[in-house]
């Protein structure tokens, strides 16, 4: 019972993108930052959920299939989108965020041909 309680508590931890039980098809997003340890790491958001600081400059997150919006803090206090990430079933989509730039810039490992350079669409 206590184990179940701990498990439930772990699921409830207000960690970014807690995904203990994602219904439906899921895929994976790998977010890397360069440089790995910047002096000040900007906050990153997947849709509107703030990500925990990336450990050693990388995070692998389980996500529902669909398109997620990667954003950072904008100058006006609103979220500023930096790219879209397409999550496909049992596939991994990798995006590298250049955090030394202002605003941070996405570099997709693989991207759709039609996307604009200012807001690329990364695919798996």
């Amino acid at each position, binding site marked *: 019972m206590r*184990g179940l309680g701990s498990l439930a508590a772990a699921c409830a931890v207000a960690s970014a993108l807690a995904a203990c039980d994602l219904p439906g098809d899921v895929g994976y997003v790998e977010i890397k930052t360069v440089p790995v340890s910047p002096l000040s790491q900007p906050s990153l958001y997947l849709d509107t959920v703030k990500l*925990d600081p990336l450990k050693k400059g990388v995070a692998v997150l389980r996500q529902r299939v669909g398109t997620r919006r990667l954003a950072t803090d904008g100058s006006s206090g609103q979220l500023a989108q930096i790219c879209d990430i397409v999550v496909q079933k049992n596939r991994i989509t990798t995006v590298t965020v250049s955090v030394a730039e202002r605003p941070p810039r996405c570099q997709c490992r693989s991207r759709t041909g039609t996307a604009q350079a200012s807001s690329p669409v990364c695919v798996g």
Partner: protein
Amino acid sequence: MIGSILRLCAEKSAGLLAAALLLLVLAAPAPPVLAQAERGSQLDAITPVEEFSRQLDEFKKNIPELNKKIEDSAGSVDRWTDVERARKEIEELRAIVGAALGAVSDNGMVSQLGDKALSHARDKLKALEQETRFKPEEKQFLIDQWRKLKDETERATEELGTARRQFVELLRTLQTNEDFIDELVQIRQAQKALEVIRRLTKDIRDASDQLKKLIGGIKPPGA
């Protein structure tokens, strides 16, 4: 590779369990200064670590066939003559690796429990260093036990990080291979389409030849 990761996870898990059990055993004959409530709190205190060990164990049990399946299927990727079958096998492998990656992903259950266990061990160590209830030797003993536990948990979470990187690479390789197989399927389909066009062209040529013969055979009277 994955097998060794899993073995390491299992070893770490066993180590953590052993450490947790040792702590439980040692907590039992504790001096009377430890009240019942405090003992209860000691038991609660090791729960995140136990839970993390249990989850690691479960993770290991859930994917015992992974390594074997990957090895068995590695050959199938080379047998690309049956692209549909190869694609299906890769899809199945992606599902297996995906499930394994799900457990160790940063927002996965095992990783989050690992973070929680680690944070708890660090907090406990910090709190014990400020503790004034115990005799110096008792305090030192408890600190040593928690320090050992913290080090073990750190190593176990690092192993999870290694497993995560390996699964990511594996998944990427599988999807790259699948993309390549998809391209092969498209080539095969294009070849089939070409065969159809060639057959059609030949049929038209044959019909044309017959028509020519027919026309050639028509001779007007007196010719």
